[in-house]
């Protein structure tokens, strides 16, 4: 996803000389092509994220689209008030980009687990939040984000994720959710890079004779409520999947609609259950330990199917 983002950004910076990028002293290898190509529009803010985000708001006020690039919680939780007051309140054209959403930096420990950012960023008004599920979705939402004015949040995974979409996501209509797999018995609604696990779960369910639909919400906010309502009307059960706390994030957003709709569709949320990941391990190991890998999602779906 990271590489897809940099590829699209390079193209867009080539076309538009009013795009600048500020990094919080990160992205050594990843951003190198941009440093070489656009040295005058690349700014290293140092390890000073609060100053970085205020600066981004000020720079945007001079008629620029400003990308703020960092990893994990550093571009979100650390300068949260600067995002809220300086960027969102002013409608600043600042795009906060996080590499390493969820457990990407699993073994580095709790400080590097971005597992509340979706909930926190979603709560702030006037921020559009993108949560692409694979490199193809990343390309589509990055283009959309750079077309839109105003403050946005883009939550990426790492580099070299597998593609889930078999081809490019063409003509994506903001903020529509994308169906990856049709199914009739249960729906798996996913937001972010954990999409691979939702797909894996669908395969496991298929082996058990359960037909699961998989939908990726590449835009967390505004959420595609129309698609959620269609699922609520068409299925007896749905499972939300996110590499984020189940408190206030994607699953919560779906539940808000479900509660207001009052449909008979039952919901289960897969995600981190209001705890810190204290076990040491890589991304997949932590997904498994904290019950959000393909097997755990399939188990949650199956349990839901078996409920009366």
């Amino acid at each position, binding site marked *: 996803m990271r590489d897809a983002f940099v590829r699209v950004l390079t193209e867009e910076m080539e076309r538009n000389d009013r795009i600048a990028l500020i990094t919080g002293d990160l992205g050594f290898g990843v951003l190198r092509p941009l440093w070489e190509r656009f040295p005058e529009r690349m700014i290293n803010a140092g390890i000073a994220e609060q100053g*970085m985000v205020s600066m981004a708001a000020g720079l945007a006020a001079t008629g620029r689209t400003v990308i703020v690039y960092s990893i994990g919680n550093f571009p979100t939780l650390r300068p949260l008030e600067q995002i809220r007051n300086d960027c969102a309140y002013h409608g600043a054209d600042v795009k906060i980009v996080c590499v390493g959403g969820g457990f990407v930096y699993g073994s580095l420990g709790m400080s590097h687990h971005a597992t509340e950012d979706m909930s926190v960023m979603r709560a702030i008004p006037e921020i559009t939040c993108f949560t692409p599920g694979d490199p193809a979705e990343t390309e589509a939402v990055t283009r959309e984000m750079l077309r839109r004015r105003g403050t946005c949040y883009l939550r990426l995974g790492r580099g070299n994720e597998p593609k889930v979409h078999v081809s490019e996501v063409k003509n994506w209509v903001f903020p529509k959710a994308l169906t990856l797999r049709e199914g009739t018995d249960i729906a798996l609604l996913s937001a972010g890079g954990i999409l691979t696990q939702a797909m894996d779960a669908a395969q496991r369910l298929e082996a058990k004779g359960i037909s699961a639909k998989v939908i990726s919400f590449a835009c967390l906010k505004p959420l595609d409520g129309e698609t959620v309502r269609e699922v609520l009307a068409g299925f007896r059960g749905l499972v939300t999947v996110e590499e984020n706390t189940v408190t206030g994030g994607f699953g919560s957003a779906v539940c808000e609609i479900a509660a207001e709709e009052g449909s008979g569709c039952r919901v289960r949320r897969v995600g981190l259950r209001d705890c810190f990941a204290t076990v040491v391990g890589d991304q997949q190991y932590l997904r498994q330990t904290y019950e959000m890998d393909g097997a755990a999602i399939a188990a949650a779906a199956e349990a839901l199917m078996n409920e009366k």
Partner: protein
Amino acid sequence: MESYEARIHSGFPEGKPDVSDPRVLAWLIRRSGLEMTHLSRGSHIGSVLSVAEIIAVLYTSVLNVDPKNPKKPDRDRLILSKGHAGSAVYTALAETGFFPVEQLKTHYANGSSLSGHVSHKGVPGVEVSTGALGHGLGIGVGMALGAKMDGADWRTYVVLGDGECDEGAVWESALQAAQYGLDRLTAVVDYNHMQSLTTVEKTLKLEPFEEKWRDFGWRAESIDGHDTESLKAAFARAKENAGSGKPYVILAHTVKGKGVSFMENNILWHYRTPQGDEYEAALKELEALRP
């Protein structure tokens, strides 16, 4: 009933103060600050009284701004980072023609645009909303950097509080401004030596303050922040600083509550609102100071 404007302007020849004189504008900032906090039962009158000359000199003698065209691209940018002194900027803007003076009476009021901490929403001439401390310098760094990238001549001014300099973000931004060589960025610290609970010295010491800024790569000077001529001269030096490759900071030594004897250097008046006898006594003292 007498209008707000008539009440504030009474005592000037034909009720028309010469707002191009920084001493007159500073007096109006104090007078309106007293009136606005009185009417609204609002707070921070001490800060408004300390920052009065700084804001008055900026609007009369320094800033290239146009009340008829508040968004003109080559305007200078002013950020009041100590947003709690918002009524000082509101007064300067109203008195210099950005919006009607009469509107000042809506400060804090239900449905008004004039929030206690300075807001840009619906207020012509205000660049950014502040109130949480430690944000303004960073925004100013971004603006000055943008101007530099565009090769533009306009300048960025940021007014900070001394207590605000407790915030780590101020020093992140100070490092960044120096790193990018933002020599068209000028910071002014309203150094009134008092903050919310007690003095700066008893809270987090800032001295040696000039040296701190110099060590962070800035040019720094200290002046009497109530002397309009000293302020003008300092801003002129800051202007000449363009080309030096260094940002410029003016440490303007001021007195919190300046102009009202019982408010001066009295921590009570960070939050206390002037009512009853206190309001009348403060008004009497200010009237005696009318230029």
